[in-house]
């Protein structure tokens, strides 16, 4: 029998900030993304003040004065580094390991015997050992859930986390680490009956509203519902989820292939020397193909590199091989944004009078697209807890782009621009607003923490 575990850092972004600024412990803290516009992570104290996920900052700003709320700009360099450390630690606790998002790692075990991976008599012991190493080595608090399927492991994790916060009326002994396989059928049934269906991974708000209408309000109701009826009334996602809840594993650990670290698309032009408009269209095409690849592997890019180069084999030509890297306002795999950014970079580096022989686009700073989930959710109305196999690809506005380009060709460049991208013509207006960002403690010698002696 396969056993799955989900290890999940509690309030990841805020917890990372607290490692380097211990004065934030016990304080209501949120981190902001999207030009400091939206709260994307909340400490338990901030949740207790009623701050919602993806809530606009202007709606909660008054809490700074009234309740001592501390709002910080998201520091993705820091979170990404801490996330890598988290995965390295988790790897030592299981034969197989898959990073699911910036703060979640799935582990899987072949048998029911945890002593195969270390000196642990039960998976609960193993979970506590993992949790305490995570806390000790990198300062991050986490929760661990074990079960026979990924969906159940995610639910066990949710219960471990809720029990730790004293929520949901769950038994205290399940706090921090919860192993469904160690519970009796009766205990498990009691947990299911106490858990609303929208706490289940893959059951979003819309589906859970429909389920509620059909009289299915708890996990227990869902597990005991008639499969054929569910299949008729709901989609295949719900059916798969229910099978997973019944202990039939449908999502394997290797469902999602390892993501690439960067994606490159480039081309040489041969003898034909392109002018700026042809370079613009080449770069647009490369950027949109690179973005498709990013979406295919479930990644979002944090930055885009564009380069053009003259041919080193034509010694008689003046050589000019510049490149530039532009940060995206937030990690994205939206074609429109990436194409716009790449073309902007091209215009910056292009100098007329050179015989460019090659150009290319590279997406870098790739991260799981869940990282910007809160925001995608805000704009796309998608469900927050969709498993990877079920998730719909992010919106692809390639056709919109094509139509726009056609209009611009006909009526002159700049006739139609993207209101949604919020672009001015100046580089300055493109810069991300992150006024409250903490230093890159682990990524820059200039910004490492300073300690008083």
């Amino acid at each position: 029998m396969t056993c799955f575990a989900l290890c999940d850092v509690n309030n990841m972004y805020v917890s990372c900030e607290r490692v380097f600024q211990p004065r934030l412990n016990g304080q209501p803290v949120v981190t902001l993304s999207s030009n400091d516009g939206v709260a994307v992570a909340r400490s338990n104290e901030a949740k207790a003040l009623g701050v919602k996920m993806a809530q606009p900052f202007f709606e909660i700003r008054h809490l700074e004065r009234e309740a001592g709320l501390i709002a910080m700009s998201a520091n993705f360099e820091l979170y990404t580094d801490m996330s890598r450390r988290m995965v390295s630690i988790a790897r030592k606790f299981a034969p197989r390991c898959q990073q699911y998002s910036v703060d979640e790692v799935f582990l899987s075990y072949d048998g029911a015997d945890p002593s195969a991976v270390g000196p642990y008599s039960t998976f609960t012991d193993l979970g506590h050992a993992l949790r305490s190493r995570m806390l000790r080595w990198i300062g991050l608090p986490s929760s661990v859930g074990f079960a026979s399927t990924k969906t159940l492991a995610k639910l066990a994790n949710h219960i471990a986390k809720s029990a730790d916060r004293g929520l949901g009326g769950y038994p205290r002994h399940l706090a921090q680490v919860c192993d469904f396989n160690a519970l009796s059928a009766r205990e498990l049934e009691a947990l299911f009956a106490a858990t609303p269906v929208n706490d289940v991974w893959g059951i979003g708000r819309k589906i859970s509203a429909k389920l509620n209408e059909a009289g299915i309000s708890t996990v227990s109701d869902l597990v005991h519902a008639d499969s054929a009826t569910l299949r008729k009334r709901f989609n295949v996602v719900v059916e798969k989820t229910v099978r997973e809840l019944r202990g039939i594993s449908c999502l394997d650990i290797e469902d999602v292939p390892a993501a690439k670290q960067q994606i490159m698309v480039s081309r040489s032009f041969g003898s034909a020397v392109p002018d700026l408009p042809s370079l613009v269209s080449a770069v647009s095409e490369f950027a949109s193909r690179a973005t498709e690849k990013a979406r295919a592997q479930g990644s979002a890019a944090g930055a885009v590199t564009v380069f053009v180069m003259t041919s080193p084999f034509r010694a008689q030509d003046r050589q000019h091989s510049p490149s530039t890297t532009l940060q995206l306002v937030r990690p994205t795999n939206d074609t429109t944004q990436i194409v716009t950014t790449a073309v902007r970079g091209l215009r910056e580096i292009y100098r007329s009078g050179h015989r460019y022989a090659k150009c290319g686009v590279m997406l870098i700073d790739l991260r799981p697209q869940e990282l910007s989930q809160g925001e995608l959710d805000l704009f796309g109305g998608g469900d927050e807890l969709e498993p990877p196999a079920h998730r719909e690809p992010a919106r692809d506005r390639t056709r919109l782009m094509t139509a726009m380009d056609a209009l611009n060709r006909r009526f002159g460049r700049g006739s139609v621009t993207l209101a949604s991208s919020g672009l001015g013509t100046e580089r300055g207006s493109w810069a991300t607003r992150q006024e409250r960002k903490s230093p890159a403690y682990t990524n820059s010698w200039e910004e490492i923490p300073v300690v008083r002696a």
Partner: protein
Amino acid sequence: MPIDDESNGPRPLRRRQRNSDDEGLLDTHALAAGFGAAIDEASTAGISLDELLISNPVSTFMMRCQGDALRRAGLVSGDVLIVDRSITSQAGQVVIAVVDGELVVRLLAREGGALALASDAGIEHRGDEGFEIWGVVTASIRKMPT
């Protein structure tokens, strides 16, 4: 600092990453140098400071010392401190501690039966004054005037 799964022993130098996935072949490190510049891939391995100074990269963080209250322990303002959180702290070590929500570097001392934080001036915080150990300083790096 690269993060590696193997926390012990020498690690092979990572090869520069090539992305041969697509039509083009690009050395990502050439980006910084401009595309005309050819970069020699076969650089010699040499010896590594990481190998000497960092035994557990996953739990190791860098900090900068500010102030001269630990000169007798060998620290000078501006030193880079290598801090390993995986090491169990004991008296006699230089540690990073949390005092009043702030990270400070101190000498961990034993006073009576209890641990205490000390500087050159003597004992500053006793165990019952509520401090927490953040990590153990395993090395200090100082640049010399050149």
